[in-house]
């Protein structure tokens, strides 16, 4: 069965970008494809929204950006995770896991005598 795609939670895109770049430097289009492929059709991300987010992260010093020649010989803007970006990613991932496990616990809990 198919669900309609979910709107993206605020700030989620940033984590996804950091996570993507955690694998290594990459340009905007590649990041966009990777996010689409890993999230499948579950998350609805407008491709254009990626670029302001990238620039914001660059402004915060979490990413470095520079124009480089790619393997195909074309010039592309390549983003790299900075040390600060790496720290941020770690913090976000652990916060996210705690959030999800807390939510999951709550949503899957069975009623006990306390609530009646």
């Amino acid at each position, binding site marked *: 069965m198919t669900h309609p795609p979910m709107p993206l939670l605020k700030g989620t895109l940033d984590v996804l970008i950091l996570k993507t770049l955690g694998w290594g430097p990459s*340009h*905007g*289009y590649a990041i*966009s494809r990777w996010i689409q492929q890993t999230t499948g059709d579950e998350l609805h991300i*407008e*491709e*254009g*929204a990626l*670029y*302001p987010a990238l*620039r*914001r992260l*660059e*402004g915060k010093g979490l990413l470095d950006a*520079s*124009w480089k020649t790619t393997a195909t010989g*074309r*010039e*592309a*803007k390549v983003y790299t995770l900075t040390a600060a970006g790496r720290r941020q990613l770690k913090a976000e991932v652990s916060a996210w896991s705690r959030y999800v496990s807390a939510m999951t616990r709550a949503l899957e809990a069975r009623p006990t005598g306390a609530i009646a």
Partner: protein
Amino acid sequence: MRRRQPSDPLPLSNQKPVDEDVRLELAQHIEFRTEELVAEGWTAEDARAEALRAFGDVLSVSKECRQITVRARRSLRRDEWFGALLHDVRFAVRILRRAPAFTLGAVMTLALGIGANTAIFSVVNGVLLRPLPYDHPEQLVSVFEATERGGLSDLTEPNFHDWRAQAHSFDGMAAYGTDIGTLLGADIPSRVRTAAVSEDFFDVMRVRPVLGRLPAHDEFRVDAPPVAVVSYRFWQDRLGGTQEIFSRRLRSNFDFQVVGVLPQGFGFPDESDLWFPIELYGRNESRTAHNYAVVARLKAGLTPLDGDRELDALTVPMREQYLPRFDAVGGTVAPLRDLEAGPLKEPLYLLLGASGLLLLAACTNLASSMLVRGAARAHELAVRAAIGAGRGRLVRQVFTESLLISTLGCVVGLGIAVLLRRGLLLLAPAGMVPLEGAPFDLRVLGFSLLLTLLTAVLFGLLPAMRMSSVRPSQAMREGARHSGTRQSRRLWSTLVAVEVALAVILLSGSGLLLRSFSAITRIDPGFRAEGVITALLDLPDASYADVHQAVAFHDRLLAVLADAPGVVAAGVTNRLPLEGNSPGGAIQVEGKPTLPAGPFTGYAIYRTASTRYFDAMGIPVLAGRPFNDRDRANAPRVVIVTQGLAEREWSGEDPIGRQFRVYGMDGGEEPYATVIGVVADIPHGPITGARREAYWYPYSQNPARTRSMKLVVRTAGNPAALAPMLAQLVHDIDPQIPLEFRTMDDRLASSISDRRFTMVVLASFALVALLLAGLGIYGVVSYTVAQRSREIGIRIALGAEPSRVQRLVQGGAMVVIGIGIVVGGVGAVAGTRLMRALLYGVEPDDPMTFGLAVGLLLLVGFLASWLPARRSAAIDPVRAIQSE
């Protein structure tokens, strides 16, 4: 509406301009996606449309991207700039802390310069620049009559009324007069400054009472019940600041009722405390009795010149109609500020200019010591240049040091300015600068900040450029020792010459003021001030309604004083020497032709005096006799004239026995009086002014003005010691007369205190400049000797006489000093011309003053170069050569 896009900060080396950066990145995304879709089998057209659809709104995304990046790059640039600045400042602090003596000297030199300038500027700001505290003060003007004699005078009452009614240039015109009266009915009898004002006065000044009301229209009448408004200060200090005042009766010239209180800070004219309707003082229909000072408000957009022209035009028909009883030829309108700033303008601007020169001297001095330090640091700078610091970076570093010194100098300088300002105001003659008139406001702070920047540029930038232009290879190879190149020596010589020139200018200027002042103190005033004490005897009109009561008071007082111990002679007069030229007026000398201006034969200053006044004041009687006890009210009229008046009217003949009378004074016809004596000419106004012709009547025969007389007592010992006894004797007769004693010496001194003030301040500037020049010469010659010690050592080793070597070193310095003196001399000749108005008895190009200034500099220059040059003769050739 489209918002202006923020401009693009310059990209760093691995960046593209923002527009291109955004456009390329987004276009590439679309391109990659399209290619992928084509690879999946889409047509090129469909693929591109799909790529664009999936992307979203390209336009708004690219706009957002652009904004984010522009902002980010800006803040990055800012952070970098501040980071570098912080680094420069830290480094500068380290450098300066390594040379505490240099830093302290530099900071103090600048602090003195900035402090002196700020202090003088705060006074200039308070007195000359700050707007007067009235509504639209630029519209306020004083109005005068231009007289036949080419001067200015106050207005006559009928002329004032005519001009006020007819002139269209003004939004209002008001007359006023000022007086110092005695106030009774407040806590204690006291002296109070009063103003008599016409009905328009409060409208012209645009002042409204904070309490009560202004005098009503009906109260501006001769026979109205007297009312007054009071100053805020007077209300607080003397009337207890309560509402009750409206029920109290006070007495000064009249019994009057207070009806209102004016706002805080308002005291025009002359810091008055009481304002009465001018009509209470009676009317005077004479068109030659100039009793009304006038203030007016120009219509918006008009200039004083417009007012001048209109009043001149109005005067023509008036003159035709009223001649010969008319003596105005036109009107003169001047900004009210000129009246308030008055004689301070020239000395203050002179001092401001002089303090500017002093600051320039301080900067020059610092520039040369920075250069000396720069030479010593050449090695360090060369190393930094060699490891990659750009020239701009080095200039910036050295300039940061200067700026740091300037800033410290500014901080210390502001402290010094506060002290100096207090000193200036203490030194300034009373009333010259009101204490509250020289505040440290934002304008003063702005001024000193500007000076700080300016000094940093002046003394810092030049050495910074010089120091950074050192070629690393050369400086490192030769070491610091030899970097004193010919070029930098020439720069030093220029700086030293400038310092010398500035000192010559300041010394010449202050020399001229010094010579003027000494000429003034040698003036024979025509009276003997030492041992004389004076006091104003202001008899309240209310208790001395009949002038004969006043005459009786003086008769009685003088009789008592004649026998008082310690009193050599006592007298009274309506006006003391130095107090001012008015009142003056027309006279008719018997047997002389009348002037075209009217039925009178000339002008002279009107005075009254008691029998022994001339003895008491020490004014010698040159011919005839002084007044004596037989010159009573009913005796034949007598008069004493000054030598100048006698010579003018009866040149070569005996003036004794001649007859003349005052014309049109105090209304009514005066009887003729016989000249019985001739006295020396005395200065009625400033001691440096012309000795105008004057005459004295015995007060018993001309009692009209006896309610306000000056007591003059010549004492045997210290005059001030006699004051309590004199006060007792006056109060025995009438305890309600307030008394303030002042010695004549004090009056004489304070009459020239503004000159002394200017002289002392300028002379101290000149001395500091001389000191700076001396230090500058000493520093540069010392350094040159140290630099050239190897060369000197070789010369001595080769057999040069040490004394010849010394002469060689010093000779070079003296040539530079000579050039500075010549340049400074030219500057001084040009500069001192501007101070002609402040000089007395000496010409602006006085050769003696210039000679002394030059001599002093030669002497200081010789000493300052001789001391270090002597060291060159003592150089041990072996040590000097080996030390390399």
